[in-house]
């Protein structure tokens, strides 16, 4: 009884719905038309890579601006040579041990010479007037800025202390009156919080962690005669000839960089790349949208040449090559159910590349770098990807570099 009723119910539903028509909005045809013109699947903007590049550049610019603005106070005054000042202080107090808390601060600052009350804490600007009067400090400051000569972080040798003492005691130079022995009292060290200015030494080794995006603009460009599918796949997944949509290629990596000469370094590491492609294809008679994903593990080798180096920023040029092994080559045809097939790819994908880079020093050892460049890929027998369709690709590497 129930079955009969349901059958009647179904029949009536079918009869009502058989000729159901609902007019869609005009945006549907606009979308269909646009996609037919550009490719089969929803397409990323051909300038999507530019968006990524813009985001990267904006981030770098923001960080750079933050660095420079946050250090504007420090850079507006003459560079303080902590070691020099400390040596002077030690010489004045005669404290060879150099414990900062034992330094009699008032004896070292000109404010005291004028008879003012000894401040327990001295600002950096309070120290400022004394420094230009110390000619011996100038060469060291220049060396610091230029970064050519590393200096020791602390003055430990008695000879150095003696040299400092004799220098500051020259006639005509303002010197603090010697007050030895001076009762030691715990006073604030005026240089507490003032980090020793790190000289721009060239790190011998740098370790980097990076992410990278590349361009994916292939519209209107025919594929090269390289394999359009993975070897042996042609008989199974068939590309129906629609224009494929390539995802933005993405790479992450870790590596190390060694200096082999004052300006020349060599870098290598391990990169993981993810390439995606969407196309209309068929597999054993079933047609639909196919998602193709390729994963590569690569070893890059690059030469870097430092063009300009300052305390906070470094410009360099680089060039090199990379060999990449295909870790995964997977096709998914969306259907009910999805058809997923993985194929092995033999051989390596080789590429060469070059570019200019900039590194912003975020700290004593950490730098944020951006390496825009151009890569050329040799497709070989690799499966079709953005790298085989457009061997010449713009690339933006960005990452952190730890210098030791």
């Amino acid at each position, binding site marked *: 009884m*129930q079955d009969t009723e349901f059958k009647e119910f179904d029949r009536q539903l079918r009869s*009502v719905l058989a000729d*159901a028509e*609902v007019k869609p909005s005009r945006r549907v045809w606009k*979308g269909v038309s646009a996609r037919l013109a550009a490719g089969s699947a929803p397409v990323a903007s051909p300038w999507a890579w530019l968006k990524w590049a813009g985001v990267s550049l904006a981030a770098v610019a923001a960080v750079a601006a933050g660095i420079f603005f946050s250090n504007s106070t420090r850079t507006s005054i003459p560079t303080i040579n902590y070691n020099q000042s400390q040596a002077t202080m030690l010489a004045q107090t005669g404290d060879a041990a150099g414990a900062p808390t034992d330094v009699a601060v008032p004896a070292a600052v000109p404010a005291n010479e004028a008879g003012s009350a000894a401040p327990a804490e001295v600002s950096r600007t309070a120290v400022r007037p004394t420094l230009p009067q110390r000619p011996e400090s100038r060469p060291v400051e220049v060396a610091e800025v230029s970064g050519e000569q590393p200096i020791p972080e602390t003055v430990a040798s008695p000879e150095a202390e003696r040299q400092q003492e004799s220098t500051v005691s020259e006639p005509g130079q303002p010197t603090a009156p010697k007050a030895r022995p001076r009762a030691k009292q715990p006073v604030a060290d005026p240089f507490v919080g003032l980090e020793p200015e790190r000289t721009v030494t060239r790190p011998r080794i740098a370790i980097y962690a990076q992410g990278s995006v590349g361009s994916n603009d292939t519209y209107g460009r025919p594929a090269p005669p390289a394999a359009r599918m993975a070897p042996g796949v042609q008989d199974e997944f068939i590309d129906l000839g629609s224009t494929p949509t390539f995802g933005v290629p993405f790479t992450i990596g870790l590596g190390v960089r060694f200096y082999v000469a004052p300006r020349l370094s060599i870098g290598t590491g391990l990169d993981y790349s993810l390439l995606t492609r969407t196309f209309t294809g068929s597999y054993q008679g079933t*047609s639909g949208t196919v998602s193709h994903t390729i994963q590569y593990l690569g070893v890059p080798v690059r030469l870097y040449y430092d063009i300009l180096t300052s305390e906070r920023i470094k410009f360099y040029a680089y060039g090199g090559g990379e060999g990449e092994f295909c870790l995964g080559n997977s096709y998914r045809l969306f*259907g*009910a159910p999805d058809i997923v097939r993985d194929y092995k790819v033999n051989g390596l994908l080789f590429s060469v590349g070059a570019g200019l880079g900039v590194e912003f020093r975020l700290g004593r050892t950490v730098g944020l770098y951006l390496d825009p460049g151009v890569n050329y890929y040799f497709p070989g027998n690799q499966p079709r990807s953005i790298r085989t369709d457009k061997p010449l690709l713009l690339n933006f590497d960005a990452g952190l570099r730890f210098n030791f």
Partner: protein
Amino acid sequence: MQLFKDKKHLNTRETEWIEGAKRGERRCQKAIYDLLSAKMFAVCLRYMGDRDVAEDILQDGFVTLFSKLDSYSGEGSFEGWARKIFVNTALMSLRKKDALKMSEDVSVAWNITSDDPTAIQRIGYTDLLKMIAALPPGFRTVFNMYVIEGYSHKEIAEALGISETTSRSQLQRARTLLQTKVKEKY
């Protein structure tokens, strides 16, 4: 709108449109779109339940249709061939969204039957589409595939990755819910 029902209904004009669309002529593609879009949109609405989502499916389906037009040999109903594309596109989307979670609970009473079997005839398809759209995705999908498209429970089970029992239970619950809605309206 009865065009494309089968080959015998394909007149010269429609055949030219298909051939032109195969060559990528936008004018012919637009003509086919104009003829099929309203009917296929109703199909998409039945499966997706949401107008915006259904329009996305309609768009995807037409792109697939035009890209696969070469595989249409001219034998059989063009509309039926096209409808399969839209149904498959809708099913793919539902699967990707993981919207086809089926309830195994079959304890709901199925004894609700319409007191007035003809009530449904007084309901226009607009209201009926709304009622179907309001069904849970699992119910709606099985109901559409079985009642409207004519798939068997075995085919539905294979297509959706569920058991035939689940397919049956989903169908019954969908029917029950629909009948309830019809009774509420009339």
